[in-house]
C-alpha cells in the first residue's frame, strides 16, 4: 500500500476508536433526552467523574480491578440518582433555559468537587492493555484502541438488545414516546427518568475509564471532550440511539481526518473545531439529524 493510503487508514482507525467513546457519551445524552427531554450540557463532567473515581479506586485505594470497576459504577449510578432527584426533578416543566443552566450548574459542582478532592494535576491512569501496537497489513493498531472499540461496540450492542427486548427497555422507549400513555399503562415515569440518568452516568463512567486508559492519564481536559457530544447527537439525531452510535464514529473519523489533512495547512487545532463546523452545517440543512424524528418546531 502506498504511504498515502496508510496515513489515511491510520487516521480513520484511530478516529473510529475515539469515536467509539463519543458514541458512549452520546448514548447517555440521547437516553436522557429521549426519556425526559432534558439536554445535558455537562456530559464531560460525568466522564471526568468516572475517570477520577476509577483512578481513585484502582491506584489510590489499590483495589483489584474486579472490585474497583463495580465500585466505580455503583458510585456513578448513585451520582445519576442524586442529579435526577435533587436537581432535575424540581425543574420539570420549567423553560429550556433553566434546564440548560441547571446542567451547567451541577457540572460546575462536580468539577469543583473533583478539584477539591483530588487536585488538578494529571493523574497517571492504570495501563489496562499492552502498549505494543500490532500490524494489520501496513497499518499499526494499538491494542488500547482495538479493545476500547470492541468494548464500546459490545456495550452498545448490549444496550440495543436491552431496549429491544427487555421489559424495562420497552418501558423506557414507551416513556420516551409518550409519557402519559406510558404512565397509564403502568410504567413508573419517575423511575424511568431516574433509570435513564443512572444509565447515562454509568456509560459516561465507562467512557471515562476507556478514555483514561487510551490517553494514559486523567486530567481536567477530559471534560472538554464532553462537548463533542453535541456534534455527534446533532448529526445522528437528538433522539436516536442508532444515530448516536453512528454519529460518534463519524465525528471521530471526521475530526481525525480534518486534523490530519488540514492542520499542516491551517496551523493546528482544526481537530477541535471541525466537529462544530459540521454541527452548524447539519443544523442549517437537516436539524433533526440523519436518524432523528423530524419533529422540530420550525420558526
Amino acid at each position, binding site marked *: 500500500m502506498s504511504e498515502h493510503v496508510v496515513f489515511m487508514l491510520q487516521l480513520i482507525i484511530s478516529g473510529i476508536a475515539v469515536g467509539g467513546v463519543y458514541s458512549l457519551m452520546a448514548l447517555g445524552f440521547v437516553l436522557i433526552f429521549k426519556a425526559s427531554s432534558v*439536554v445535558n450540557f455537562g456530559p464531560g463532567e460525568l466522564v471526568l467523574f468516572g475517570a477520577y473515581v476509577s483512578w481513585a479506586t484502582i491506584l489510590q485505594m489499590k483495589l483489584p480491578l474486579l472490585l474497583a470497576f463495580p465500585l466505580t459504577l455503583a458510585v456513578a449510578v448513585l451520582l445519576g440518582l442524586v442529579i435526577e432527584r435533587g436537581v432535575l426533578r424540581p425543574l420539570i416543566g420549567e423553560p*429550556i*433555559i433553566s434546564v440548560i*443552566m441547571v446542567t451547567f450548574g451541577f457540572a460546575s459542582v462536580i468539577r469543583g468537587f473533583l*478539584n477539591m478532592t483530588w487536585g488538578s494535576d494529571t493523574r497517571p491512569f492504570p495501563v489496562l492493555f499492552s502498549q505494543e501496537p500490532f500490524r494489520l497489513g501496513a497499518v499499526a493498531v494499538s491494542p488500547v484502541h482495538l479493545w476500547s472499540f470492541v468494548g464500546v461496540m459490545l456495550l452498545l450492542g448490549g444496550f440495543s438488545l436491552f431496549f429491544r427486548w427487555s421489559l424495562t427497555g420497552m418501558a423506557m422507549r414507551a416513556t420516551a414516546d409518550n409519557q402519559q400513555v406510558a404512565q397509564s399503562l403502568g410504567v413508573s415515569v419517575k423511575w424511568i427518568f431516574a433509570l435513564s440518568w443512572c444509565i447515562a452516568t454509568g456509560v459516561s463512567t465507562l467512557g471515562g475509564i476507556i478514555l483514561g486508559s487510551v490517553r494514559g492519564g486523567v486530567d481536567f481536559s477530559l471534560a472538554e471532550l464532553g462537548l463533542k457530544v453535541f456534534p455527534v447527537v446533532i448529526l445522528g439525531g437528538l433522539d436516536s440511539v442508532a444515530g448516536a452510535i453512528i454519529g460518534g464514529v463519524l465525528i471521530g473519523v471526521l475530526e481525525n481526518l480534518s486534523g490530519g489533512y488540514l492542520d499542516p495547512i491551517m496551523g493546528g487545532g482544526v481537530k477541535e473545531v471541525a466537529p462544530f463546523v459540521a454541527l*452548524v452545517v447539519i*443544523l442549517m440543512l437537516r*436539524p433533526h439529524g440523519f436518524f432523528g424524528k423530524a419533529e422540530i*418546531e420550525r420558526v
Partner: protein
Amino acid sequence: MKCGGFRVSYESDERMFDTRLPVIALVIFLVVLAFVPRFAGTYWLDVLNRIGIAVIGALGLNILVGFTGQISIGHAAFLAVGAYGTAILETNAGLPFYVAIPLAALLTSAFGLVFGIPSLRLKGLYLAIATLAAHFITTYGIIHWESMTKGVLGLMVPPATLFGRPLDSDARIFYVIFALAVPAVLFTKNLFRTKVGRAFIAIRDRDVAASVMGVSLYRYKLLAFVISSFYAGVAGGLMAHHSRILFPDAFTLLVAIDYLAMIIIGGMGSILGSVFGAVFMTLLPEVLKLTATSLTGIYPQAFGAIASARDIVFGLAVILFLTFEPQGLARIWVRMRSYWTLWPYSY
C-alpha cells in the same frame, strides 16, 4: 393609601419612574459613585470596574435571552470580538478609544447578525447548540488568526488617552466605564418602553402570536442579536482597556456560562436583575478570596481551595436559584420593597 401599581393613563404606564423617590435615589447614587475613586483603594476600584463592565455585558445578554427568549451560549464570543476589535483598531489603525470602542461595537453587532441567522430557523435548544458551536468557531479564529490577534501570546493594548491624558490608572478608567454603564442601564430601561422592546417581549412570550400581531420575527430576532452584541462589544472594548492585555483564555465557554448565570441569578427579563447579577457574580470570587485569606491562619490550605470552592458555590447558587427563586435577586428585591411599603399591613 396607594397599594401596588395604580395606573389610569398610558402616560403613567409608560413612565420610567413611578415616583420621585427612585429618581432622588439614583441621583444620590451617581453623586456617591463620582466620588468613589477618591477614597476607594485600587483593589476595590478594580472590582468596581469589573462590575461596571459585567453590568453592560449582562444587560446585553438579558435583552437577548431574558427579554427576547433567544438562548445564546455565545456571549463570550461577542465579548471577544468587541475586545479584540477595539484593541486592533487602536493599535493597527491608530484610532482613539472613543472612536474605536463604538466601531468595534458596530463590528460586534455585524457579527451578532451573522450569529443570529440560525435563530431564524432554529429555536430553544437547537439555537443554544448552534450558538455553542459558533462560540468554538470564533475562539478558533481568534487563537489562529495570529497576524491580527497574536493568538495565545496575548495582545497588548495601549492605554486610552482622553484630552492628552493617558487613562492608565483604575481611577481614570473607572469614569469611562461608568460613563458607559449608567447610560446603558437607562437606555435598556427606555428600550422596553418602545415598540422594539415590546416586540421583543412579544416574541419571547409567544412567537406565533407576535407574528400574527404584525411583529416581523425575522427583523426583530435579528435586531435583538444586533443590540445584544452591541452591548457585548462595548463591554469587550472596556475589558480590553481594563486588563490592557488580551488572551483568548479570557473568553472561554465558562465566561459565557458566567454571564448566563448573572441573568439567571439576577433575574431574567429584568434590568435591575442584570445589575444585581453582575454585582453578585463579580463579588462571589472576591468574597471567597477574602474568606480564604482570613482562614489561612487556622487552615493553611484554604487559599488553594478557592478555585474549586468557586466552582462549587457557583454551581450551587445556580441550582438553588433556579429551584427556589427562578426570578432571581430582582424578585427578592421587589418582595423586600413591597414588604416595607406595605408595613405593617403586609400580607
